[in-house]
């Protein structure tokens, strides 16, 4: 039995590839007959895995495949331009426009005519202001909801009702209360950002293992020490998750909010270019909005990784 196994293992797989399967069998019987002889088993050499080949394969997946998809999109885009509506500019025309826009992103030709860099920075400023306010308010509220059952039960219904509401629905309320565009847009971002922060912070506090709190009790840590040394570090990963979600949604919402409020900002820029029928500029802006979104996401990912004690 053991001989059979050995005979099988020394049969190079190449045989199975080149010869018919039937011919592989006789050696098995032969080997069984010569039991006394120690089976000379030439070590089977696995073909060396070439590192260069692995790297090439990884490169293919990382670059070639996305490029293919990009080319398909370009093809559809060209087709739409050629066969459906020539109002959509060609990729080449759009590229030319992009070069033009990015060659001077920070020009200022008056309050209503600024470079795209300024548009993005104004939008980012509103997002950051609303987001910061949401974090300042949301984290303590989330902490209270997670720590106090009464507070949780008091606030939960309100949070559940307001959370699914499109933040833009709050814009008229903001305009009414603040009587100004900028604070209203910031207010909308605040409303957008606050729910994920509250909900994730509360969940984080509730997820703290009882054991950590027992450690605190045995050590007789005071309330402040428990908060600083246990509650905050234990919930930080959850809080950062909430902040990451908030920020990416906030960046989406600001574009829509600015379309309605006007002023300097990437959202109104898109709307303005639509009114001027500069479709190429709109497409360039869409690309830029996406890139800024990725940048925001990576910053939050970095922060999250830095504070996640399980992955450090």
């Amino acid at each position: 039995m053991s001989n059979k196994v050995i005979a099988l293992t020394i049969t190079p797989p190449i045989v199975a590839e080149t010869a018919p399967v039937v011919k592989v069998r006789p050696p098995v019987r032969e080997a069984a007959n010569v039991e006394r002889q120690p089976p000379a088993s030439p070590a089977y050499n696995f073909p060396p895995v070439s590192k260069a080949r692995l790297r090439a394969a990884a490169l293919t997946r990382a670059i070639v495949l996305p490029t293919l998809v990009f080319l398909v999109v370009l093809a559809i885009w060209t087709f739409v331009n050629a066969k459906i509506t020539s109002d959509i500019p060609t990729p080449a025309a759009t590229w030319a426009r992009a070069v033009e826009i990015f060659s001077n992103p920070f020009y200022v030709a008056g309050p209503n005519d600024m470079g795209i860099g300024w548009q993005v920075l104004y939008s980012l400023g509103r997002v950051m202001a609303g987001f910061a306010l949401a974090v300042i308010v949301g984290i303590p509220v989330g902490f209270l909801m997670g720590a106090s059952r009464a507070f949780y039960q008091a606030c939960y219904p309100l949070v559940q009702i307001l959370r699914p509401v499109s933040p833009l629905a709050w814009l008229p309320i903001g305009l009414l209360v603040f009587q100004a565009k900028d604070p209203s847009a910031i207010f909308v971002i605040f409303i957008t950002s606050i729910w994920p922060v509250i909900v994730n912070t509360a969940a984080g506090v509730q997820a703290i293992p009882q054991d950590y709190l027992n450690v605190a009790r045995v050590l007789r840590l005071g309330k402040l020490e428990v908060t600083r040394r246990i509650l905050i570090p234990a919930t930080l990963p959850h809080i950062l998750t909430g902040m990451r979600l908030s920020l990416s949604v906030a960046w989406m919402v600001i574009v829509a909010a600015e379309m309605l409020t006007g002023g300097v900002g990437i959202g109104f820029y898109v709307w303005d270019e639509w009114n001027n029928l500069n479709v190429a500029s709109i497409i360039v802006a869409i690309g830029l909005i996406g890139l800024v979104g990725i940048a925001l996401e990576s910053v939050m990912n970095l922060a999250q990784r830095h504070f996640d004690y399980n992955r450090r």
Partner: protein
Amino acid sequence: MSYLNISNVDVVFPTANGAYIALREVHLEIEKGEFIAIIGHSGCGKSTVLNVVAGLLQATRGGVLLENREVNSPGPDRAVVFQNHSLLPWLTVYENVRIAVDKVFGKSKSKAERHDWTLHNLHLVHMDHAADKLPGAISGGMKQRVGIARALAMQPKVLLMDEPFGALDALTRAHLQESVMEIQTALNNTVLMITHDVDEAVLLADRIVMMTNGPAATVGEILKVDLPRPRHRLELADDARYNHYRAEVLRFLYERQRRPEAA
């Protein structure tokens, strides 16, 4: 009066189906420097006893006296080694011990002394080499060693261990048992240890407290383990007295307190 006196403790939990009597009339007197193992089937309330002594749980009736003083809230004089180590994952091994040292000796020791005391305790459990690692980067057995170091660093009057090695593999458990015996020889702590491992109980304990099954669990029998120290696992394996004690515990657990529906 004994050093640690668990005096006629009842613990009753209110549940939706009425009161659940977990412990009834648990009475136990422990001398200073004694190593007590509490053994019983799972669900019998062993950990409840420990939590009452720790002050993490209030007795419904009766109470706990430590050096003739009632204790009913947690404190570092009754340090706990938790079953799943309970290290704070965002602190390094050193910081996990240091937080306890700072809390207990913040006023009585200088900063340098606290640093040395932290390292000393890590050294006791052979973990000084990993002082700067995060708990996520060390093995389960190592985490439990750090948990023991943290408890020892509080210089507790009673060291409470709640199935400290229950989650570890047999070899790691044996290593840690050796460490505990070694530390016990050096420090002569008063230890109350919960276990479900018969060998562990006989190997480590001066007395084994065997608990009856719940509900209304209580102390069934107390077995004095009269084996000389230091004890060596391998020598004891062939020791008639050791095997006799082992058999006594097994008889209690599997004949007298067999769980009716145990699988």
